[in-house]
Structures are given as C-alpha cells and as structure tokens.
C-alpha cells in the first residue's frame, strides 16, 4: 500500500529532514511512527499525502508514484487518504456537521446522501448529538473526533495521523485510539506518528522509530524481533 524507496528530503540547504528512507507498509497494516521531535515524522507523513515532494527517491501509494504525480492529480490521491493532526485543523466558524460534510461535498455527493453518511459517521464517533454546534465550542477530544469523522467519512484506504493524541487527556486518548483500531479492522491502513510511549506499548502494533531523518529501529507487530529487512 505504501512504499518508500531511498527517499530523501531536504528543506532548502539545511541538513536533510529525511535521509535514504526505505519503508514498506502493507494493505491493512497498523504502524506507529515514533522518534524525538525533529526526527522527520511529520515530513514523512507529508510526503505520503502529497504535501511535499521528496528531493530524492520514490513514494508509492497503492502502486502510484506520488512524486511523479502532476499537481492536478494530487486532489484525487487525497480523496483516498484521511489525515488528522494534533491541532485538529477544523473550521472554527462552521458546525460539526459542515466540517465533516465537506469531504463528501468535494466528491460531489448529493445533499441527502451527504446528510445520511455524515450523521452515520458522527454516530460512530459518538458525537451525533453535537452535529449543529460550532466546533470551537467542543472539547479537545470531541474536536479530534470531528477531525477523525472528516478523515474517515469517505472510507479512505489510508489514515494518517500526526500526533493525534498530543492535546488530549488519557480517557480521550483511549477513545481516539480505539477509533483508529476500528478503522483498521475495517481495512484501512493506519499510520500514526506519535511519541506517546504508553500508547505504543499498550497497542502491540508495528513500530518504526525515526531519528535525525533515518529509520533507527523497527519492531514487528506483537513480537520483539528487530531490523526487518526491506
């Protein structure tokens, strides 16, 4: 599903943000991306949804070479990828419903279908009763669930998350993490960048550790074996 071949990324003339990364994530996998701040986690995620172009190497999503994709094709790539962030990136002056419906509006769905599908996903997230509230009036956990609803409403093939629980308390962390797991069970490939050690240890999922732009460690799912060959 996701393949990175010798990917390097440098911002201007600075030291490279990513250095010769090789990574293979299969369909339906759940992967944690961890490492200290500035290790290159966010850069890696941004490469995956086409917000950045690698300076060297290839990024393949579902067999498609993202680095060769013309700008006009990027939107179509993003329709198959859901993304959530630490700061949620919600539209503060719009309601919960509108924030989620935007994904389907972009796809050109009809009004009635958008209504049905949006309420359906809000129910899954447990926030259907707040559908008519402005997002600025929600708690952090609720806002992240709205962001997740927006990312998942279109049943994406891939869900990317950049420090999704960074702003949340423990109860909310668990709820959010459970939503990731549910999405994964339904077949979505999930990549979560986090440095929340507890979350990673609880989950027993594949773990990729970055440091200074390089993969320094890989731990396979539920086993302790190191250094998976790619």
């Amino acid at each position, binding site marked *: 599903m996701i393949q990175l071949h010798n990917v390097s990324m440098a911002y201007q003339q600075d030291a490279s943000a990513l250095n010769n990364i090789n990574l293979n994530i299969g369909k339906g996998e759940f992967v944690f991306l961890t490492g200290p701040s500035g290790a290159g986690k966010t850069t890696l995620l941004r490469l995956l949804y086409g917000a950045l172009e690698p300076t060297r190497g290839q990024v393949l999503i579902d067999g498609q070479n993202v680095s060769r994709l013309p700008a006009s094709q990027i*939107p179509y790539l*993003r*329709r198959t990828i859901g993304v959530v962030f630490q700061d949620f990136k919600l*539209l503060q002056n719009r309601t919960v419903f509108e924030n989620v419906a935007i*994904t389907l509006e972009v796809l*050109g*769905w*009809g009004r009635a279908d958008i209504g049905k*599908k949006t309420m359906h996903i809000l129910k*899954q997230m447990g926030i259907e009763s707040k559908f008519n509230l402005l997002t600025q009036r929600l708690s952090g956990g609720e806002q992240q669930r709205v962001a997740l609803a927006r990312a998942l409403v279109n049943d994406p093939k891939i869900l990317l998350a950049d420090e999704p629980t960074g702003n949340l308390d423990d109860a909310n962390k668990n709820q959010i993490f459970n939503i990731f797991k549910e999405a994964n069970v339904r077949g979505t490939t999930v990549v979560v960048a986090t440095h929340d050690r507890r979350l990673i240890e609880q989950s027993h999922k594949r773990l990729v550790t970055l440091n200074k732009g390089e993969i320094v460690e890989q731990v396979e799912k539920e086993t302790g074996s190191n250094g998976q060959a790619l």
Partner: protein
Amino acid sequence: MNRWKKKQAATVKPFKRPGLAGDTFGGRAGYFFARAVTNIRQNVFVNVVTIATITLALLIVALFLLVFVNLEGVAENWSERVQVTVYFDKELSAGEQSGLRDKILALPGASRVTYVSREEALKRFKERLRGQETILEGVGPEVLPTSFEITLKRASRDTQKVEGFVSALKRIPGIDEVQYGEEWVRRFNSFLNFMRLLGALLGGFLVVAVVFIVSNTIKLTIYARRDELDVMSLVGATRFFIKAPFLIEGLIQGVAGSLIAIVLLFGLYEGFLQNAGSFLTFNPVASGLGFLPLEYIFGLLLAGALLGFIGSLTSLKRFINV
C-alpha cells in the same frame, strides 16, 4: 465505558456510494453559489469590510467621472463659439446664397451655415450697443458687411482642423474675407487638451490606487480564511473547486460595492442639486448639469464585478498550495 463503541459495532456496515448530484454542471454551479452565499453569511464582518472598501473606492472614481463628464459638457458648449465667418461687401441674391451655401456645406467639417443680411447685422449691432444707440444715429445698414456664419461639427473644432477648413473655404471662388478668431480657438483648444490630460492622469492615478487598495483588502480577507483553503485541499478538493465559491463571493462583493457606490453618488448628486442654489450663482439644472450617462453606470458595475473577481483570483493563487 464506551457508549459509542457498542453502537458502532451495530451500525458498521458497508455504505454504498450514492450517485453524484454534482455530476451535472448545473448541480455544481448551484452548489458553488450556495457555498458562496453561506460563506458570506458565515463571514459577515470580512464581507462588510470588503464591500465597504469597494464602495468607497468606486465612489471616489465615480465622483471623479461625474465631475469630468460635466466639465466635458461645459467645454462642448463653449466650443459652440468656434465659428468661422465669411464676409461680403454686398448683399447676396437668393441664388448666390444657396450656391455658396451648398459649396460650403460640401466641405468636410461644416455643420450649419447661416446667412446674415445687412439688416440682420445692424439689428445685432444695435442690440450690442443697447443704451448707447445714439452712436449709430444716421448709420444705415449699407455700411455693414453681409456674412455667412459657419458652425463646425464637434470633431472638427480643434485648431488644426479649423485651419484646414478655413484654407479650403478660401479656395471657393467668391470667398475672400474669412475670420475665425484664431487666437481664441488656439487658446480654447490648448486649455481643453490640458484639461483632458489632467483628467487622464488623475483618473489613471485613481484607478491604480483603487485596484491596489481593493486587491490588498481582498488578499487580507482571504489570508484570514486560509484555514478553509488548507482544509479543502486536505480533503482532496481540486483547485477549481476551492476557488469557485471564493470567486463567486468576490463577484457578489464587487457588484454590491459598485451598486452601493452608484446609489450613494446619486444621493450626493441630488443633494447637491437641491442645495446648490444657495451657494452657487448659477442654476445647476439650467446650466446642463447631468448625472452619469447610462453606459458609465454599467461601466462602473462591470468595473466592480471585475475588481471583486480578479482581486479574488490573484489572491487565491497565492494561498492555494494544492
């Protein structure tokens, strides 16, 4: 602990992808328009600021246009005085009159030819000397010349064309003495050219200032909403899809701004007409003062629409990074 989790287990089922309402162009256009209107309602402050800016900017331009159009009108009236007179020292017979008249009218630029007989000339002379008629005692019409007074077409009233006309006139047999107040024509025309140049310079300067102010205002308002642009591109909206509602919004702002500007200008103009009598020595209505002609009003509306549209277009280019 997870109320939502239980529910989720029950409701998770594959969701069939429904038909697209936006597949037809009409569906999309309707969506974009609705989106634009919703955006305006959700960003009232930003829209009020933008429309007010466009209104003020266009009001200044429109006020300038109104003054300019009226000055042009006054100048047109003055240029009626550009007149060429041909003198004769004898009374012309009806046949001679019409023969010469036809020849003069055949010249390019001539618009009207009036014959002034000796009687008529004396009458005008007396009128001019009203109160001092005694000077003319014993003077008969026979001492005065007869003449043709020739009015020129509007386009032929500048210095060069008048001179060309006069030299052509002199080539007609039977015409010797021609007067046309050369000095006055020259001065009047150079004054007119100066006014037009000044108008063009000032107008150009105003337009540049207006475009600058409006486009920067729009840029700031779009900058304030760049989150929206980011989110749209994040969920896979195409560039066109992101832009369209903003462009329609810009169009609405532009048209609204120019409409308000025109209404305000009309209010100012009417107010001026009502009150001008008290501080002006002339009657503004009788002196031919007028509001902007219809094509200028349409021009202003179009300018407003273009300002809003192009202002949004160029600003969006900067902030969309799909």
